[in-house]
Each structure stands twice: as C-alpha cells, then as structure tokens.
C-alpha cells in the first residue's frame, strides 16, 4: 500500500471506524432501504455500506475503487437509522465516507463543475437569483417551448430534459420576497420566527416561500428573513465537502441571531434536516457548539408551527383524494411525521389516504435522481404504483426535491392517470384565500 493510501485509510479509520463498529450486522435495516429493495444486493444495503466503510478503514479494500461506488448509490434517506435497533449513526458514517472519497477522487471536469457550482454558486444568493432570473427569462421568452419541442436538451442530458419539463414557472424577479425585512401578522402576534428560505427554493420555487410566509402570518406569527443567510450546506455535505458545510453553518449561525426569535422555520425537509444537525456537525468545535445547539433546537418545519399555532382558517374545500409523500429528511432526521398528515386530514372536503410504503424514499435524494437517473427511476416507478393505488388526485410533499421528483413521476409513470402534485404549503394557501 502506498503512503497516501495508508494516510487516507487512517483518516477514514479516525472519522468512521468506531461508528461502523457499532453495527451489529443484524440486517434490520434491509427492509427499510429503498436501494436494497430495488437493487437486491447486500452491497446496496445500509449494513453492506457500513461494512464496506469498515473494510476500507481497515485497509482491506480501496476507497475509490471498491468503496466509492456503493456509497455513491446511497440515497441518504436515512430510513435505516429509524429501523436500526442499536442507533448506528449511519448519516455520520456516510458523510465521513463521502468526505474521504471527495478528497481522493481524481478531479474530473464534471466533478469540478459540481464542486464549483456548490462552493461558489449555491453559497451566493446573487448567483442563485441570477439563475432564477435566467430561468424566468427562459420560460417567459418561449425558448423553453422550443427546447421542449425539439428535445434539444435531451440530446445533452436526458434526465435534465425531464426535469426541465417539470420545473414550475419561476416568478418574475420583482415579485420575490425581500430579504432583511419583517412580514408582520395582521392578527394578534403570538410569536416571532426567522425564515430560512433555502437556496434552490428561493431561486426556483419562490412561490412556496411566499406561501410559507402567508401561512405563518395567518396563524399569528411575525416572520423575518435574515438578509445574509447562506445555503444550509446539505448539498455540500452530501458531496463530501465537509469543511465547506461547516463554513456555511457558521455563517448561518452568525446571521440567525437566536435571541428574540422563537423559531427558525423552513419549508424544505432537506434543508431543515441539515439545520437540525448543525449541533452534530459542530459538536467538536467548542466555540460554536453552544450556538449550534441553540440554533438546531429552534429550527423547525413549517408544518409543526402551523399545527401548534393553528388551526388554519380554511375558506374553501378540496375535492378528491390526497396522498402524502413525506420528505425522508423531515421524517427520518427531524422526526416530523404526524404534523403534515394532521394538516392534510384537517382540510375540509378532502379525503386523505396513506399510500403503501409512504415512508420509503421517492429516490429524489438531493441530486441523486440526476446522477443516478436509471436507479432512481426504478424506485420512482414503484412509488408511483403506490400513489396510483390510493386513487389520489393530489400528491402532496414537504420538500422541493421530492416535489420535482413526484412531478417527474406523474409525467413519466402516470401519464394516463391525471394527478396533481403540490408542496404542502402551496396547497394550504389555496384553501385559505
């Protein structure tokens, strides 16, 4: 073994070995894992992946050649953590593995592009606004129609083509909410919340953010949007860019002053999970630990506050069956499972039906569906079967990534079967106006 190899094995050993050693290899995680279910091999299971990280840490297999592939195919949905009887911190093992892979990976152009996009793009609201603006312009100009018609984009990247089709109309720049401003409730003020807008949501699905503010105002909460907030870091963490993730976390901790506000609210399950885990992320940095702890404690999904300060003053009925595809990170990491369902059940006129295996991942998984399009499609196909079996007319999600995936699923696997997709807050707003 060459010197750098030993070095990286040691680093992995330090970061993950003792955690992998907690796994008693009972296999209770197997039925919970969507990739094990779709691929049917131990290598694609949580138990298998933990073992491979252990083997790599021990130097028995190579990080890049043997470990990277199976780790890369993990959705990161963390359903295995819920199933685990001995609380193995799978998420931490996964992130440590990704970090080491990232460090060792030969720098390909594609990776470099993703890296640049993540580190320079998503950390910069101006850049994201620019993308948002460009998308808006692109859609407004009718160029999108032409691209869709000619399938030009499919020639470049088929999966991107699918997603281009399902991207919701982006609002024109002037209609977006302003950062650094308070949105006050017209009712008696019951509390003050700071809103974490999320980078992708803010740029591409801004309507959902507007609606989140509207709903929070409706239940009597004042909402503030801290101006200099950054990306939560989830996408960076998933790519193994841990030091960048930590930097972003620290900047957010500085921007979101926790004194004077009751909650830090978000409406994206994936971002929420990252915010929820700042305390683990910074647990070994004493000067940040306390701040992170306070931040994570106050960080909460919008559905929790809507239930806590509700009920919502519904003015309309919703006809038809609604089913719910929860965000894995909302359920498995933040432990919020009941509130969104409670809100859906409270909608007048609607019939909420739980789909089979609703808690299993839709295979959106950050940008998994772009990187591993075929694998993702297999999982999505069986998910859409479950959706169809409820005879739902609307499928509701709690995270922008899942929403896009459901739209894609409806488009690809349920064409003959008309089904609407909506983020929870977008649906709720329609009914209180």
């Amino acid at each position, binding site marked *: 073994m060459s010197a750098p190899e030993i070095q990286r094995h040691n680093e992995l050993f330090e970061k993950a070995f*003792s955690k992998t*050693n*907690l796994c*008693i*290899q*009972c*296999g*209770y995680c*197997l*039925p919970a894992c969507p990739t094990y279910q779709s691929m*049917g*091999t*131990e*290598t694609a*299971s949580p138990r*298998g992946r933990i*073992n*491979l990280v252990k*083997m790599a840490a021990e130097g*028995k*297999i*190579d990080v890049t*050649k*043997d*470990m990277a*592939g*199976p780790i890369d195919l993990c959705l990161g949905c963390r359903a295995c953590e819920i199933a685990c*009887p*001995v*609380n193995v911190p799978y998420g931490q093992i996964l992130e440590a593995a990704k970090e080491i892979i990232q460090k060792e990976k030969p720098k390909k152009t594609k990776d470099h592009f993703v890296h640049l996009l993540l580190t320079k793009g998503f950390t910069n609201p101006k850049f994201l606004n620019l993308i948002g603006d460009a998308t808006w312009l692109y859609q407004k100009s009718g160029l999108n129609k032409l691209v869709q018609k000619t399938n030009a984009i499919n020639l470049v990247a088929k999966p991107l083509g699918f997603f281009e089709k399902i991207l919701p109309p982006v609002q024109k720049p002037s209609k977006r909410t302003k950062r650094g401003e308070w949105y006050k409730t017209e009712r008696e003020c019951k509390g003050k919340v700071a809103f974490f807008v999320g980078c992708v949501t803010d740029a591409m699905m801004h309507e959902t953010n507007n609606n989140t503010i509207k709903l929070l105002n409706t239940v009597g909460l004042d909402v503030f949007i801290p101006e200099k907030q950054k990306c939560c870091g989830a996408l960076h963490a998933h790519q193994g860019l841990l030091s960048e993730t930590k930097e972003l976390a620290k900047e957010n901790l500085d921007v979101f002053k926790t004194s004077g506000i009751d909650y830090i609210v978000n409406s994206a399950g994936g971002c929420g999970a990252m915010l929820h885990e700042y305390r683990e992320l910074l647990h070994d940095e004493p000067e940040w630990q306390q701040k992170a702890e306070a931040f994570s404690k106050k960080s909460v999904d919008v559905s929790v506050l809507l239930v806590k300060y509700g009920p919502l003053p519904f003015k309309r009925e919703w006809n038809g069956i609604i089913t719910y595809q929860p965000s894995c990170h909302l359920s498995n990491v933040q432990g919020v499972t009941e509130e969104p369902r409670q809100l859906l059940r409270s909608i007048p006129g609607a019939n909420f039906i739980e789909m089979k295996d609703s808690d299993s991942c839709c295979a959106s998984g950050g940008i998994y569906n772009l990187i591993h399009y075929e694998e993702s499609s297999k999982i999505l196909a069986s998910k859409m079967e479950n959706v169809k079996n409820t005879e739902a007319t609307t499928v509701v999600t709690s995270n922008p990534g899942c929403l896009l995936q459901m739209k894609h699923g409806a488009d690809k696997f349920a064409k003959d079967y008309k089904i609407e997709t909506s983020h929870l807050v977008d649906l709720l707003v329609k009914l209180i106006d």
Partner: protein
Amino acid sequence: MEKSIVKKIEEIIPKERILKELSDRYSYSYDASFGEYLPDIVLQPASVEEISLLVKLANEYRIPVYPRGSGTSLSGGPLPVYGGMVFDLSQLKEKLVIDKENMIAVASAGIITSEIHKKAEEVGLFYPPDPSSSNVSTIGGNLLENSSGPKGLKYGTTKEYVIGLEVVTPLGEIIRTGGKTVKNVTGFDLTRLIVGSEGLLGIVTEVILRLIPKPQAKKTMLATFSKFIDSGNAVTNVLAAGILPAAMEFMDNACIRAVEHYKPSGLPVEADALVIFEIDGHPLAIEEEIEKCRVICNKNGATSVKIAANDKERDEIWAARKMVSPAITQLGPTKISEDATVPRSKIPEMMECLYAIRDKYNLTLVVFGHAGDGNLHPNIITDKRDIEEMKRVELAVSEIFESAIKLGGTLSGEHGIGILKAPYMELELGHSLELMKSIKQAWDPNNILNPGKMFPQPGQTKVVLT
C-alpha cells in the same frame, strides 16, 4: 476464481446476477455473528433449475457452496469459511400462496418470514414461529436454522410447521420431501432431517408450511420480582394451573437496569427479574386466565403486576423487552449472544451458573430469554478489539455450554451450531455425532455444501474468537 469456471457459471445464470467485485465479495463475507470469510464469487440464482446446475458444477470442480438468506444468523450459518461460492437466495421470492382451505402456505425460500405472518393473518390464519429477525430473515434460512422465537412453549418451533420441501441435494438433484398433507408417514421423514440441517444436506428452494387458526385475542401482563427464584416459581405455577401462555419473556436485573438507563420508563431497577406473560385465545378465556396469572404472580412475591388495558399499554410492555438489544449494546460494541437452553425447571440453577461465570471471568453478562421453554439468552457485552478480554470471553462461552449440557440442556435452542458451537458438539451428542457425520457423508460425498459448519475440526474443542 478461475476464468474457465466463471465462464461456465455465465452459461447457467446471466452476468448481472454474478457478483465478482471485491466490494460484492466483502458484502457477503459476514452475517450477524462473528467471523469474516471472503467468498470467491457471489451468485444470485433465480430458479431451482439454476441452483441444480450450479451445484452440479460445484461438484465437478469441488467448489464449496454456501447458501444464504438475509444473513441474520447468529451462529455463522452462511459464512463461506472455505471461500468458494455464496448463493444469495434472498432474491428467490417469486411465490407465496396461502391455501386457506388446506390451511397451508407455499413459499419460495427467499420470502421474508413476516410476509408469511401478514398474508396468513389476512385470511384469519397463523404461522406461529416468530424469530425476532422475522421482518428481515427468509423462511428458507429460518427453517434451515430451525429458528423460532418466543412462542415455542405453546406453539412449538419452526420444525413443527414444515410439512414439505423442494430441495436441491448436495449432488445437484432436485427432490421433493413431504407434501401438502399434515399426515404423512411414507418413508423416512427427510423433511424433518433437512429442517435444522443448517444447509449441510440441501438447499431449500420452496417450503410448504402448516398454518393454524389465528387466536382471536390476546392479553399481556408485566410482573416484576425482587427475587429471581420467585419469578421462576411464578412461571412454573402458571403452567401448573393449566394455563399455557403464548409467551413468557424474562429479563434479569442487568437487562432491566440497561433498559431503564437507555430509556427511562419506570421499570424497577432494584428488581431481580421481570417476566412478560402473554395469553392468547378466546376473549373470554384470556380474561380469566390473565387474572389467574396475576393472582399467581402476587402469591409468588411479585413486587408489581400490570395488565395492559389496551394496545398502547401492550406495546409499552413489549417495548421493555424490545429495548434490551439497543440498551445492552450501549455497554460495549461487541455483543455475543448465546442461546443455551435448559429444561425449564433448571432455569434457576442455570442462572446461578451464569452469574458465577460472569464473576469468575469478570465480564459484563446479562441474561434475557424465553422462560417458558428454558431458552435463555446470556449476552456477553465486550469489545472484540480487547484481545485480553476476548480470551476470557472464550473461556466463559465454553463454560456456559458445559453448564447447559450438564443440566440436561442443549447447546442451542434456536440460533444453530454454525461455526461457533461446533467444538462442543461431541460434548452434547457423543457417538450420535458420528452418525450425523455419516449422514452428511452419504448425502454430500464431495463435501460441497456449507463445509466447515456444525462438525468440529479434528482436535477442535474450544471456540476461538480472537
């Protein structure tokens, strides 16, 4: 593995079901027990015909074959100790038919056991064997290891429910044993011989299981005792009163402390023992029986007795038992779970032996298990990286087995022999071990199927964990 052999394998099954990468091989090098053995190749055959051809090929080239379900074995059952081929049969799951009229289930070997529970219950039937891994483990693996769970006392173990099999023999022939009738005395009972044979006599591809009517209702009760002996008397007296509980699960003081420390729920940490009684049957009968259990426990010095009033309270009671595993793993990273089993009346004596062993070797040892059938699970919590302590564990494990056998018990109630208990087989079986070996020899002249299991190596008398 030699290229020419791989080429022959590729003529039998498609490439995508042949796993050759190092990552794949390491992914099938372990189960839920100890030990790590790297197979040369992993195959996922999808039919009995493919398995038959592959086993014939293995015989031709003398390649060891290790069949495997979901790899939940605690005794090393599927570990490829001599390399060779691992057959991953977890994907062999095409068939699951519940035949309500004949009260049987026909299932492919890779069907998950809880799936059978679920499908049977949908039509009012019941498959009682319920290993704690039932949400993960395959029916094929369950029956080859004869694993069973807490309901052994009232309902018997897996072997009581298997009435027919489709099997690939160690020479690659496809045979059927038993059938769909509950009564069957034609010829030798090969079904019974294969059940619990730990994959030494054949690869099971399809099973026929007997089902029984689903009990209409159940009642659950939690009793705690300040003296261990009292809990033993309560268990015996409940049975003497003509009540046959579906489960009597027991936890010792160390388990209670661990669970309470892990997730405080008001369990008495001073109690010597805790027993969960579950009665099932007709709603009226179980009301009366659970009340009798309460009276008997009180008479036998129970410090607290609680009968669950509803499903929520029932779940709370079972939560204590289900938390044992996570709770005790907080005590150390390596958990050695044994299942030495003694006649019920010898449980108190066995407990004394276990505590003496614990003190003698200065180990963290906790005990829980199935009080009704004498199936105890002494668990030693240690750290396998601590070689010095592991040496003491080896000696302690040996003494646990010796004690169980001395008290008229057995090496294994439900985990199987595998590699971990092979050295002690002669201690329990004496000369009948030779007879077992001659059966293996007759069935598997080339020693192809799951070699290295169940029978000790010459001169091997102790387990080696380090």
